[in-house]
């Protein structure tokens, strides 16, 4: 019996230990596999973390265009007049901080006022002769470089070179893929008589007041510089906003106040202005000459099912007043019998009204991509100045939208000075 029990115990032991040994071997292999997987996960995590975006974020966007120009009164005046590329960078290192910049890189085949669709040189003749240095060459300009701090829900502080909040075209409609016509209104855009961008600091924001909304912008900048004629007698009395060297201690104060009275924000009415006490060179006879710029603007959007599309109506009226001063005639004028000094009412006026219609709710793809646009614009500089200029244009446009931000524009501009047909392809990216 003793041997019998011993045998049974031995058999159980063998039967039990062998699978236990095999099981222990399996577990060891599984553990090894787990360790290997852990290592692999660690490696993969390293790779993922290497490409993981940080809190700081960056976006490259912008727009580009190519414009063809055909003078309807001179068949020889036919050319690809302008190619522009305007990259916009937006960098946001934290929720409250942001930096936005815009560059204008442009090639111009000729200088014609208001010819480019990105708001550059929309002067309509004012200053065009002096600013024609980049004809046929590549021109690079810093559109804006604006450091932004979102102070609270309703107020933002910016510092740097910012788009001047005068009227609505400059800030809202100057990119070529937004402007429904290939040209800027007379007097508006970069390098034009009205300010496009200035150096300074600004506070701005918007807030809801019941069903309506209000928005505001208030800024201090270097302000304009008076061309007093000592450098260029032909420009005496004009003010230049694109000159960023401050020629005196005085700073310009400006702002815009907008009201959107309708519950769906379709209508905006705004007033804006800039006051500069002194625009002449410090220590010169023109030191006390000041300038005032006032503007009013309106925009209205109708998104109608009955009209099967969107109608936009926008307009801006701007008046630039520079204090009267005595400017010196050059020796040739004096020899021709003119007096040594002359003066004039130094007031310039620029305005435009634009209406566009896009049947975006049409059932037909071709029709829904079409857009019709019409703009009347007017510009007049002081009639007794040496840089006198006046023009009024009617521009008719037919656009075809390839995408939401890519459009081919065909436009005919009938003006007092010239009649021009434009063909432009604008692309936002």
């Amino acid at each position, binding site marked *: 019996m003793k041997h019998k029990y011993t045998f049974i115990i031995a058999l159980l032991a063998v039967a039990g230990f062998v699978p236990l040994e095999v099981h222990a071997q399996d577990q060891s292999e599984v553990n090894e596999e787990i360790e290997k997987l852990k290592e692999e996960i660690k490696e993969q995590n390293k790779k993922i973390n290497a490409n993981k975006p940080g809190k700081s974020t960056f*976006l490259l966007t912008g727009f580009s265009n190519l414009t063809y120009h055909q003078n309807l009164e001179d068949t020889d005046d036919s050319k690809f007049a302008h190619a522009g590329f305007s990259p916009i960078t937006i960098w946001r290192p934290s929720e409250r901080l*942001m930096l936005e910049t815009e560059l204008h890189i442009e090639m111009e085949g000729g200088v014609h006022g208001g010819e480019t669709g990105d708001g550059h040189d929309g002067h309509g003749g004012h200053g065009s002769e002096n600013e024609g240095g980049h004809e046929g060459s590549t021109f690079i300009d810093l559109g804006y470089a604006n450091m932004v701090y979102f102070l609270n829900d309703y107020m933002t502080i910016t510092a740097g070179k910012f788009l001047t909040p005068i009227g609505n075209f400059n800030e809202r409609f100057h990119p070529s893929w*937004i402007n429904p016509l290939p040209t800027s209104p007379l007097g508006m855009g970069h390098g034009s008589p009205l300010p496009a961008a200035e150096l300074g600091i600004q506070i701005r924001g918007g807030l809801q007041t019941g069903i309506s909304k209000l928005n*505001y912008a208030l800024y201090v900048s270097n302000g304009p510089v008076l061309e007093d004629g000592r450098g260029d007698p032909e420009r005496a009395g004009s003010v230049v906003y694109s000159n960023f060297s401050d020629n005196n201690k005085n700073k310009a104060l400006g702002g815009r106040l907008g009201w959107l009275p309708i519950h769906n924000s379709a209508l905006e009415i705004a007033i804006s202005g800039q006051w500069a006490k002194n625009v002449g060179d410090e220590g010169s006879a023109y030191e006390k000459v000041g300038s005032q710029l006032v503007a009013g603007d309106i*925009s209205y*959007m109708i*998104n109608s099912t009955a009209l099967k599309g969107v109608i936009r109506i926008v307009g801006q009226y701007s008046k630039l007043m520079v204090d009267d001063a005595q400017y010196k005639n050059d020796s040739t004028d004096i020899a021709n019998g003119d007096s040594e000094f002359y003066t004039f009412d130094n007031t310039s006026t620029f305005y435009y009204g634009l209406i566009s219609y896009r049947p975006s709710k049409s059932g037909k793809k071709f029709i829904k991509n079409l857009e019709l646009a019409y703009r009347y614009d007017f510009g007049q500089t002081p009639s007794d100045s040496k840089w006198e200029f006046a023009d009024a244009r009617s521009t008719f446009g037919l656009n075809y939208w390839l995408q939401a931000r890519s459009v081919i524009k065909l436009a005919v501009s009938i003006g007092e000075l010239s009649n021009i047909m434009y063909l432009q392809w604008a692309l936002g990216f």
Partner: protein
Amino acid sequence: MKLSRIIIAIAFIGYIIFSVTSCKSSEFITSKSGAQLWGENCVRCHNIPSPNIYSDKQWELAVSHMRLRGNLTKVETDKITEFLQAAN
């Protein structure tokens, strides 16, 4: 011109005081959806591209840029961003 400057200065100061003291989101605006605010605010100036042209992170930047340009409030900005990210 001096009077107009004073009027403008008073208007701006009053406006800023009003904006600071009314730091409470209007019920009217909070009742609107992000899609509605997107349609109302963006179409005023330009066509609205498809939400899938940017990533979620890129939309945060693009809408912040438009907050500045279009003077949008933070509530509007956040709602529009959330909508675009959800639709992306």
